[in-house]
Structure formats: C-alpha cells, structure tokens
C-alpha cells in the first residue's frame, strides 16, 4: 500500500500547516520529475484530495505531473497571478479564490525564483475591491506575503493602469484594454474558480481571463465570442491555467419566467465539496472537464467553450483526452496516474472522497461516453449549504467594518467646548475689566508724561530703550 503510507505522511504534514510544507513539496517534485521522464507530459492534470487535505497539497499534486511551477516559471521572471477577487463573500462560499490556495501558489512561484509576483484582478461590482479583498480573505494573504497588487476598482482606476493588447486572431474583438502589469509579466497564471454564470451558464478558466480586461463589461456585447477571442494567441494569453474546484458553487434551479435555463443563477450558500484542482495549459479541456464533472453539462452546449474549441484553442472531448493521456487524473498522495483515469471513472466522484456526492455526479458519468449525442440538462441544486451562518450577513458585516467607519469629532466639538467657550468669554470680560481699572488712572497721568518724557530725553538712546521696555510693562 504505497499510497496509504504516503497519505499518512501527508496527513502528518498537514497537521502542522495551513501554509505549504516546503520540504515535502520538494520531495514530491523530485519524485514526479522521474515519472515525467518516463512518459509524455500531460496537458491537463486533475488532482483529487479529501476533505482533510489542504488546498496546498491538492495544488501540489496537480502541478507535480506538469513539472511543478518550475516548468512554467524560470528564475528571474516576472509572474502575474490572477485570482478570482470580484465578489465580497467569505471563502467558504467559493465565490472567490481560496486564500489558502493563493498563499500556496504564491509561495511555489516564489520558490521557483520569480523576480516579481504581481497579483491582479478587475473588480467591477459593488462593493468594490477593498471590501472584496478584505471579505474574501485574499487581501490579508497578499499583504502578508508582500506581493505586488494591481486591483482596479469598478472602472474608477486611472487610465495609466491599463494599456491595449492586440488580438490578431480575434473574431469579435481585435484590440482590447488590459491591465498593463499583465503584459509586463513574463508568465501569467490564471487561477480560476468553477462557478455558474448568468449568461455563459458556467464560468471556469476561459471566462476567468476577463479579469485582465480594462472594461470587462464591454465584452458582454458579444460575450461568448469575446471570451474565445481573449484566449487566442496574444500577449495576454496565460501560460498556466488552474481551476479551483475544492468547493464549487452549484446552480439553484431555473427562473421559469426567464425562458428556460439560460439565466441559471447561483447561490453562494449552495456549495459542494469536490476537493479537486485542475491545472494545465489547455483551458478548453479544463473547462470541458469541469462541465462534465461538476455540473454534468455537455461542454459543446456552452457557446464560449465550443467557440474556443472551434478556434483551435484546445481539446473539448474529455474522453478522448483522457485516453490519449492529455488529461491525467491523480489522487493526492499517489504519485502515479490512478488506474481509474478512464472517462467513466474520471467523472465518478469517488464515494470515499466525497461522501456528499449527488446523483447528478453519477448521471454525468453515464452521460460522458455519449456526451455529444445526449446533452444533459443542467442539474438542479441538491447540495446542502456548507454552514448555517447566513452568507449575506457574514459578507455585509465584514464590509461594514471596512468602509462604514465615519469618524466624526462633532460630538466633542459640540458638548465639551461649550463650557470652554463660556470660560474664555468670562475670562475676556473679567480681564478687560481688571486691566482697564488697573492702568486707567496710571495711564491717564503717566502715559503722556512718559511719551513726552521719552521724547525729551531721547538724546540718550539707551534711555529711550529703557522707556520703551518700561512702557511694555505698563501696557501689560
């Protein structure tokens, strides 16, 4: 049982750390390097862990067969990482990138010798970047690791943060505004989250690239084609795509009045654990895998995925890819591709790993071999909320802490200064009375004589000076 012993080892490591255990990471990579020499390197790797595995461990297992981060990041390079930081919801709602996963990736990239690490995303929705980063827990992680951050806020950011990129193979868009720092980087890592979406139904790696744009909203004029366009070969293309499916936000029902399933909405409270991370260089295949396995949807059904496939951006047939070894499947703790890496079992949520696996999962399994023939309709929600804490309350509470503080000194200025004003006014009146009485007789008699006296004796300048200082004393 080599896998079991390794798992024991991993569990021991996991007990110590929310952060990445580097020594263990190095060992794994050395092991995998030997493996990779033996067979062709896959384009996409799926790593599945269990609830007790940390995001760092699952990520490591996913990147290992690809050659680790070192296969993508050379020492001295500038690396741009784009997490999902658009929604101000806490981490357990799977609305944004998991902070622990982000921490693990940053540490890996740093270990690979990156010169600069720039984190970026364009948050276009209220309540804005600051609250989003604070609530999602991503901000503290980035501050702690001291990485560069470029997070434009709701189109409010200065123009010089952006530049334009040419998309020579774009169909709908040939030129788009993007975050300048994204083009300055040598390597772009697209750290996406699997979610469902209003227009495109599902959003994974392909659509996630929109966060690099200056005007993500403008892409909506031709959204599906636009998503395919920004993934074509260009200066903004990502070198590594990582799809986080540790927790996945599930769709909840359809709005019947909205004319069918085109307006699938998601509820951040409906989150299901898959404990998977999919990484690779083929975003179409990653999205296709996600469609089949997390949502049980035929990827051909999604316009943006099929358009990207037609543009030659990757493989859409999950079954074919896994047979050819282009898609490989690993269980965390096992260094070799699992024998269950055939399409049927690929999409099977193993009962041991995911006790809350739903019938939709198995339905997707049976559908996979004949996927083009019978597209599966989008499933309705069956997953239970991860926690009893209402998400909206959590998010709003965190937000109000960030932005809501208004510091107002008026209470003090109003109450405490009334007696002060009374004292000052009284002092003024009393002093004036006192001083007036004191020096009036003296001044009336003395003043003119002093003036003339000083004038008369002005021949002696020292006398004049003395007279002046004496006059001071009188005046006071």
């Amino acid at each position, binding site marked *: 049982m080599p896998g079991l012993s390794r798992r024991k080892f991993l569990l021991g490591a996991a007990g110590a750390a929310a952060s990445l255990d580097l020594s263990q990471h190095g060992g794994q990579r050395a092991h995998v390097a030997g493996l990779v020499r033996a067979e062709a390197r896959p384009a996409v790797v799926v790593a599945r862990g269990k609830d007790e595995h940390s995001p760092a461990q699952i990520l490591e297992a996913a990147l290992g067969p690809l050659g680790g981060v070192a296969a993508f990041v050379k020492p001295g390079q500038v690396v741009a990482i784009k997490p999902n930081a658009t929604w101000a919801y806490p981490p357990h709602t799977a609305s944004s990138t998991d902070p622990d996963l982000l921490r693990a990736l940053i540490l890996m990239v740093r270990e690979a010798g990156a010169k600069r690490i720039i984190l970026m995303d364009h948050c276009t929705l209220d*309540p804005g970047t600051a609250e989003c980063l604070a609530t999602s827990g991503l901000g503290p992680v980035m501050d702690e690791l001291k990485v560069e951050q470029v997070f434009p806020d709701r189109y409010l950011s200065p123009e010089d943060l952006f530049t334009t990129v040419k998309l020579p193979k774009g169909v709908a868009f040939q030129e788009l505004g993007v975050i300048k720092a994204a083009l300055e980087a040598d390597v772009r890592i697209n750290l996406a989250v699997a979610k469902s979406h209003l*227009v495109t139904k599902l959003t994974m790696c392909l659509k996630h690239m929109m966060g690099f744009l200056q005007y993500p909203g403008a892409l909506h004029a031709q959204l599906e084609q636009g998503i395919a366009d920004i993934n074509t070969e260009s200066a903004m293309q990502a070198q590594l795509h990582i799809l986080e499916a540790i927790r996945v936000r599930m769709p909840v029902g359809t709005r019947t009045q909205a*004319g069918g399933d085109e307006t699938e909405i998601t509820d951040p409270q409906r989150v299901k654990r898959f404990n998977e991370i999919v990484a690779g260089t083929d975003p179409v295949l990653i999205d296709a895998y996600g469609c089949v396995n997390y949502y049980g949807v035929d990827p051909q059904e999604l316009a943006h995925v099929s358009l990207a496939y037609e543009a030659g951006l990757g493989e859409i047939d999950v079954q074919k890819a896994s047979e050819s070894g282009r898609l490989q499947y690993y269980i965390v703790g096992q260094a070799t591709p699992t024998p269950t890496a055939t399409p049927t079992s690929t999409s099977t949520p193993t009962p041991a790993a995911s006790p809350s696996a739903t019938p939709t999962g198995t339905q997707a399994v049976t559908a996979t071999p004949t996927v083009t023939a019978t597209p599966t309709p989008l499933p309705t929600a069956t997953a239970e909320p991860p926690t009893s804490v209402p998400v909206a309350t959590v998010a*709003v509470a965190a937000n109000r802490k960030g932005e809501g503080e*208004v510091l107002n*000194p008026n209470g003090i200025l109003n109450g405490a200064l009334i007696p002060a004003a009374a004292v000052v006014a009284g002092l003024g009146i009393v002093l004036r009375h006192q001083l007036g009485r004191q*020096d009036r007789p003296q001044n009336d008699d003395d003043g003119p004589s002093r003036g003339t006296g000083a004038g008369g004796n002005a021949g002696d*300048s020292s006398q004049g000076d003395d007279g002046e200082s004496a006059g001071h004393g009188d005046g006071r």
Partner: protein
Amino acid sequence: MAKAPGMAMAAEPRRTARARFGLTDKLARKLVQLGFLGLFLYPIVPVVYRRLTFKPAPTLTSWLLPWDPLLLLGQVAHRNWPTVVVGAPLLLLALTLLMGRSFCGWVCPLGTVLDLVRSLAFWQRRWARPVRRLRRNSWARYYVLVAVAVGAAVSLQVLGVLDPLVVFQRAATTLMADFFSLRQPELRIYLAAVSFVFVAMLALELWQPRFWCRNLCPLGALLSLGSRYSLLNRRVDERCDGCGECARACPMRAIPREAHDTDYSDCSFCLDCAAACPKGAISFGFGALAGRRWQRLGHSLKAAGKRVIPGRYVSAPAVWPSRRQVAGGIAAGVTGLALAPLLDLAGHEAVIRPPGALSEREFVRACIICQECVRACPTGGLKPTLFGAGLAGIGTPQLVPRQGGCSLSSNCPQICAQVCPVGAIRPVSPSGWKIGLAEVNHHLCLAWDQGVKCLVCVEACVVGAAQVYHGRVTIDPNKCTGCGRCEGACPVAGSAIHVKPLAHA
C-alpha cells in the same frame, strides 16, 4: 569710559535684532497658518488613499465646518438641531474677546490661501500707495453678514455660497478629491460650477491685499463684533516717527492715518506691521487698549536727529452705526430674504438626489454645497449639479450613475448622511429607500435590439429589480431603488438603461 561706545554699539544691534525678531514672528505665523491648512485638508487624505490604493480607510468628516460660527448662526435660523455643533463656534467667538481677529490671520485656511496667492502678486509691492490714498475698509461685510444671517431663515444656500470656510471646503474638495477620482472629462465644468466664488476671491486678492477679508467676508464681520473689545492689542512706542510703513504693509488696512491707532475690528494680528517698521517701534501684548485712541499732544519734535510724536492713549467713544448704515443693514436683510425665492424662480428639472435627501425644495434650501457628500461618496457617484437643478441647485449633489451607483443597499452605511454638516441628507433604512427608477431604452439595449445575451444590468442589480423575461431585460418598478448600478455597468456607449428621477419616472 567703556560704557559710552558700548551704549553706542548697543543701540544699533538692538534695533536690527528687533527687526529680525519681527521677521521671525512673521515666519512663525506662516508655519502656524500652513499647519492649520494641513489640518483642515487632512480629512481628504483617507479618501485619496482609498481611491488610489483601493484599500479600506475610514471616512473623516470635515474638521473645519464644525468651527464655523456663521454656520451655527444659519442653522439656528434654519432649526437643524440634530446636526448643529454649538461648542466649537461659540469658543471661536469667545476667543475674539481675547485675541480679536487672530483667527483671520493665523487659522482661517482661506486666509492662508489668499496670503500664498498674494505672495505671487509682485505688482502690489511695487505699486504700494502712499498712506493717505489707502481707502478705509467698507461696511459692506456687515451688510453681507446681515443678508446671510437673515436669508438663512429661508435658505442656507446664500450662506453656503459666501461663507469663507465653506468656500474653502468646497474648493479644496473639488480640486483634490475629485481630481483623484479621475475618469472625469467634465471635471473642469464641475470646478467652474462650484468654485466661482473662490476664483473671484483669488482675483480680488491679486487686485488688493485681503480685499475679501476686509470688505466682504461675513465671517470676518461676525468676528469683528467681538474683536472691538480684544485684549490682545498693538502698541506703538515713542520711536515712531510716523513714516507710514506699517500702514502700507498692513494687509487688513487696520492702521488709519494716525499710525499709533489700530482698528481692532480689522486687525488680524499678522505682525506684518512689526516686521515692516524700520524703527522697531511696534509691539503686541495684552491689555485694555482696544477702546482707546491715540491723542497727539502738540507738534512733533526733533530731538537728537529723531522725529518724535508726543501723545497718549485716551478713551475713545463707542462707535455706533449711523442711521444710514442701519438703513443699509435693513436693506441687506431684505435682500437676503428675497434672494432664495428669487433663485428658486428659475425653473429646473429634477435630478437624482442621494438617498435620504430632504424633499427637493427643502433640500436646495438646506444644502450649503460644501461638497462633503461628494468627497465622501465611496463609489464616486455623487457629483455636483451644474444647471440641471436650476440656479439654486448649482453645486448641490446629484447621483451620476455613469460615474458610480449608490451602494446603500449593499454595504454603504450612508456615508453621505453621516458627513452632511447641515442635515440636508438624513439617515434612512437601507431597505426602504428609492431615489429613482431605471428605464431600459429598447432601441439601444443589446438584449432588446440585437437579442444578445448581455444581461450585465441583471448581474449588477442587487435588489433583483432588473430581470430577464424571454431574453429581454425588464425592470420591476416596485423593487428598483434607482441606485443606478445597472446604468453604470451597461456596456452600451452612453448606457441603454437610465435612472430617471422620481419626479419624472
């Protein structure tokens, strides 16, 4: 023996030391002025920080407006009790009994700005007029004060336009905070709309030193009332030979032709006269000199090469306004009362006001256009109105959804209401408010016109008012709050969805 040369030496250095001392005082005043300027500008810093770094920062209310005695006067007339700050302005008024109009010379941020601007006006120095041709300060500022105070009973608007502290707050906010919110091609229009009085003040300053403060400032007039009895005073000793340098240097023109006298309702204790005096004859101290005047005794003498003016300070009769001045004051009050309704006469269309704003008519009359809400708005959606709300509404805040929506429903604790110094924006429940109604332009909307599944507005809507019906966007008028996030998010150039003010919806 050794004493005579020693004394002869002592006279010269003493005088230069004195002159240098005057310069040090002047420098100290500049530092104090700049310190207060920085202090009053500081509340802008967190806003700029937040807009540049996108990190959360607390919002600070103005540190200047609570000190404004004129605002207190206006609010008492306007009966805005919950937002009235009493202590600080009263303290400021009480301090005039001790230190006269020192506030104008040392603290007032507008005065500081005017002083800085004046240092550029080199021609004023070259063309310094002889003393006898300097005109005395007019009583106009008292008329302005009466007009503002009486008019405040009807509308605070006139007060907001002319109150120097509000003028400063407005100009600084517009220049700095708005500059950093960027993405505003109309910025220059906004500047023109809300800063015209400020620009006029700067122009007047280039013409004559402290013209505004001496002749027109209503706050200065208010402070003048107590300053007549200031304990801090200026005294001129017997070394004065009446050369008139002090009167020429005085930016407040507080020194009449008789150089020993001081008009304490004008003097801001800026110490410029002490620094300018070639004889070092001017000093400042506390005493009961404010009610006195200098009485010459006989003719000036010449002794040992020095011209000496003999005389003494004697009690002066109290100054009462003449019948003509009283009539002028009454006329000013009537003008103030008439001004607000006159401004209201100019017809206007409705604009989107921030949530919790008083009814349009009351709002325009309560708003002092200080731009505090514009500065503090976390989304940058509040902007000063140009002519959209009529003459009386110039500079009042309106929501411009294309610049940013209202986030009261999602996370804003209604910052605009919290920073409003006059209670023109009142707190409302985050769930029960409505400032407008969104309308979809079917000819422009991608979903309506081209069948494109855009639906950005549906995504942006936080109250579920924007809905999809057979692929088309519809607005639920009962749910829509008019926050304008849909309008801000729409990818169509100029937006295909517009929030209409409630009066027009």
